């Protein structure tokens, strides 16, 4: 399988006709790294990636938004702290919190998750890994909530393997919120096996109350193409478990017809 995401030049507008009417925005902040990867994953998942620029407050009528990984503004103050104030975030916050029947689905991956917590769209926060190091490894996760737009095609408690790579990945949250998250089934992904970073209750990803905003630390967009993903049971770098995130949202947006 191949996807058309050139390394050079303008990847912002797809050259091909949209595959579906699922238009998914991928935001680029200064310092964002995984925007091309996320756009590729959207395309492989059957959607149409639309590049969104941090300084532009318009979402260009996308149906969902991904805040990809990276080190926005160097993560210098705190991971995601400065990006959270970008003009595009103001609009995303409004749309994600809209009281309409279907508020904007938003996925934050790694730095994107950190931005969502800084923006208070998701509870808790991320601090340095307990071992204080950057860690890059294949990570097994359990999908514990299949009710979100981003996880609808997983089966409950499915185990998936995706890469994880971060320095500030330790999820912290106060006791009361933690019980709420657990009670309401809002832990979407949980680390399986030895904790990679000391996160409370091994939480790898959570959702908001309405289930439209999801954040997770590991990188599903790096597990969408055989040959370039994590190792899994089928072979070296063959893992494509992350793809289901992207097919899920496309399917949700197109009424299950993708």
């Amino acid at each position: 399988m191949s996807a058309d995401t050139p390394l050079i030049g303008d990847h912002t507008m797809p050259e091909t006709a949209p595959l579906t009417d699922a238009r998914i925005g991928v935001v680029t902040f200064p310092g964002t790294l995984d925007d091309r990867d996320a756009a590729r994953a959207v395309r492989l998942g059957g959607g149409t990636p639309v590049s969104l620029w941090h300084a532009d407050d318009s979402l260009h009528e996308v149906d969902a938004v991904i805040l990809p990984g990276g080190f926005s503004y160097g993560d210098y103050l705190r991971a995601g702290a400065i990006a959270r104030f970008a003009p595009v975030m103001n609009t995303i916050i409004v749309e994600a919190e809209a009281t309409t029947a279907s508020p904007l689905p938003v996925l934050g991956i790694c730095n994107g998750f950190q931005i969502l917590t800084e923006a208070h769209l998701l509870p808790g926060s991320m601090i340095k890994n307990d071992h204080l190091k950057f860690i890059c490894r294949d990570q097994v996760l359990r999908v514990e909530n299949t009710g979100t737009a981003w996880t609808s095609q997983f089966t409950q408690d499915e185990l998936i393997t995706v890469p994880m790579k971060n320095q500030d990945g330790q999820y912290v949250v106060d006791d009361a919120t933690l019980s709420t998250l657990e009670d309401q089934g809002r832990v979407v992904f949980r680390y399986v096996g030895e904790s990679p970073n000391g996160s409370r209750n091994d939480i790898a990803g959570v959702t908001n109350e309405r289930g439209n905003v999801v954040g997770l630390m590991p990188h599903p967009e790096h597990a969408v193409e055989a040959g370039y993903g994590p190792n899994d049971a089928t072979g070296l770098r063959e893992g494509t478990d992350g793809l289901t995130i992207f097919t899920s949202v496309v399917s949700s947006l197109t009424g299950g017809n993708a």
Partner: protein
Amino acid sequence: MPTILVEVMPKPEILDPQGKAIANALPHRGFTGFSGVRQGKRFELSVDGEVTEELLESARTAAAEMLSNPVIEDVVSVTVAEDL
């Protein structure tokens, strides 16, 4: 040039992995007598003119909204230091 100092610390109930690592390392280097360490941040905001009450208020707001994350951190102090 006057400077406004903003000091931010991790909330007491939040884990502080950096502070913990330092606390563990201190005795190995012969520094005993400290029962715990916490690591926070210190910001120096330099001001070209005079530090008006308005500017100080603006620094307080910046400290609360941007320089700290209220979920995990407390702003310990916002003060003026004339002599830096």
